[in-house]
């Protein structure tokens, strides 16, 4: 633990105590339950966790794109440039924020583009609606520029093409071009590469890093792939059952994972040259949203859990250098080692 806490650069995005509810016929669920994190300008925060941990819901909440009817933000703040987005009307959010200052790249690039409009139309759309481009030809020129930024060859010629004329990797670039067209301060990338080939994944990650260096955009990267997270993220937040259980600088978190869940995630990564009969897999299932444990949500699967863990949710323990975790074992001193 260092004695002097490094001064964190100004946050481009700050999320405080975000709670998202889904009202369904069978009851109200809370897929996101009190999530807090921040991302500095020019930095990348990775949010990792199993499927169903609330990563995507967190993402959709930031831009308020929750499924309707039923989805709503029940509490907390999403602050970009001093403005709490949760307080804005839908109209204000669409007009001044979505795509302009905070944008999103979704999970499936194959279905994220409208099949019946040209690429030029779609990449130009945010530029036109945010009045960055005043005329049609200006929008085209700027759309081509955005396509060039994501390294699409001969962008002017491809403006008139339709999505089905692009490969999967190229479509993901087009989607990314849409997201960065207006030079937003924050970009959310929800598993942007999980449907692509591994070689293309690496290229996309390199591309995001280059774009970040050029524009200083803050990126929130949602992934379930610890390898991807390790390769690009400055900070990592580990999500479990709707809450962040541990977050910290990427290197520190990989070197000294504090939470038993983080530890088990890391030991699930196979290492090159290591001889193991079977890959490690964490037993059990994440708790159902309809039956959340009263105490620590990981307790039912945790080898170190005791009565206290089952009884109440642990508070945050600061491990220094922005490394924080919620675990009774850590709070009571000494890094636990289960895995």
């Amino acid at each position, binding site marked *: 633990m260092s004695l002097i806490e490094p001064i964190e650069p100004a946050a481009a995005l700050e999320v405080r105590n975000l709670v998202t509810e889904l009202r369904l016929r069978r009851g109200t669920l809370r897929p996101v339950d009190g999530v807090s994190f921040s991302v500095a300008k020019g930095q990348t925060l990775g949010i990792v966790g199993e499927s169903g941990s609330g990563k995507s819901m967190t993402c959709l909440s930031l831009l308020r794109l929750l499924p309707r009817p039923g989805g709503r933000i029940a509490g907390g703040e999403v602050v970009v440039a001093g403005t709490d987005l949760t307080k804005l009307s839908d109209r204000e959010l669409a007009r001044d924020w979505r795509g302009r200052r905070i944008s999103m790249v*979704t999970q499936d690039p194959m*279905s994220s583009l409208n099949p019946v409009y040209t690429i030029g139309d779609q990449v130009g759309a945010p530029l036109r609606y945010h009045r960055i481009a005043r005329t049609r030809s200006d929008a085209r020129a700027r759309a081509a520029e955005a396509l060039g930024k994501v390294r699409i060859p001969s962008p002017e010629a491809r403006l008139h093409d339709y999505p089905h004329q692009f490969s999967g990797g190229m479509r993901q670039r087009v989607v990314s071009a849409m997201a960065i067209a207006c030079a937003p301060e924050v970009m959310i990338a929800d598993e942007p590469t999980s449907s692509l080939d591994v070689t293309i994944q690496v290229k996309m990650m390199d591309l995001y890093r280059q774009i970040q260096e050029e524009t200083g955009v803050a990126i929130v990267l949602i992934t379930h792939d610890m390898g991807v997270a390790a390769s690009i993220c400055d900070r990592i937040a580990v999500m479990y059952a709707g809450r962040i259980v541990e977050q910290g600088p990427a290197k520190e978190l990989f070197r000294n994972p504090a939470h038993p869940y983080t530890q088990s995630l890391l030991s699930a990564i196979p290492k090159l040259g290591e001889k193991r009969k079977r890959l490690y897999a964490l037993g059990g299932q994440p708790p159902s949203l309809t039956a959340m444990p009263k105490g620590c949500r990981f307790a039912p699967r945790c080898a170190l859990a005791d009565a206290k863990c089952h009884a109440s949710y642990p508070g945050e323990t600061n491990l220094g250098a922005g490394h924080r975790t919620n675990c009774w074992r850590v709070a009571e001193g000494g890094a636990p080692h289960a895995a």
Partner: protein
Amino acid sequence: MTRFVLRRVLQGMFSILGASVIIFVVTRLSGDPVVLMLPPEAPEAMVSQMRERLGLDLPIWQQYFMFLSDAVTGDFGNSYRWEMPVLELIRERLPATIYLASAALVFSLMLSIPFGVLSAVWRGSWFDRFAKGVAMLGQAMPNFWVGLLLIIVFAIGLEWLPAYGADTPKHVILPAIALGWYPVAAQTRIVRSAMLDVLDSDYIRMGRSVGVPEGVLIWKYAFRNAAVPLVTMMGVYFASMLGGAFVVEVVFAWPGLGRTVVEALFARDFPVVQAGVLFAALMFVAANLVVDLSYGLIDPRIRNDR
């Protein structure tokens, strides 16, 4: 693309040929036209002379081939009743039918597009239920009955619109509603379900995430994707309205092909009935072909595949 069009034209010709055989046989089953054309007390010799003159004494297959070989050259014979070439009669009556069917189509789309789109946007709302009710009403009532109700309310009761004839643009309103209300239910349903699918799609969310206004998302981004099934359905209804506006044309005394064919049928005016039905079949086939070709205009994926 050319091969596709050729194949469809060939298929269409077979359908029309089939329709011609059926109508030829069926009209001849309906009875002897000569009996209606001559006074009951006409001598037998006169009747058989008349039959001979019209070619009705020949075997039916011979009659059919005569009809067919003439029809290919554009000669559909003369009307027994109006005593003029059938082709001329059809040319005179067809525009009114096309006009009425187009007006009916426009009316049905004016209801079903906003109904379908807004029902999907506001699913489960009072509007959704209201639109469904209005649409179902049109499908539940036979169109002659709708026509009569419209006449009673808007022509006789309120005296807003004329009840029959085709003199002014106003005249087309009531028959167009009577004819166009029926397909509203099916069209609304297809637009609604297509819109529900599209509105939940990733590309609509993507559009929303970059700040495209909601109205543009719904009416431009989503609707164009939802339009393909509507165009298919609308084409079929339009074709059937072109060829099947018989009852509505009679109710509103509309001077179109439908009413002409109905009158010809009662008079056993075979050439007119044959040609009228043949034209209806022709238009049905043509409308379907136009629909198939129009997909490419809406969806670029179809444009390139063929």
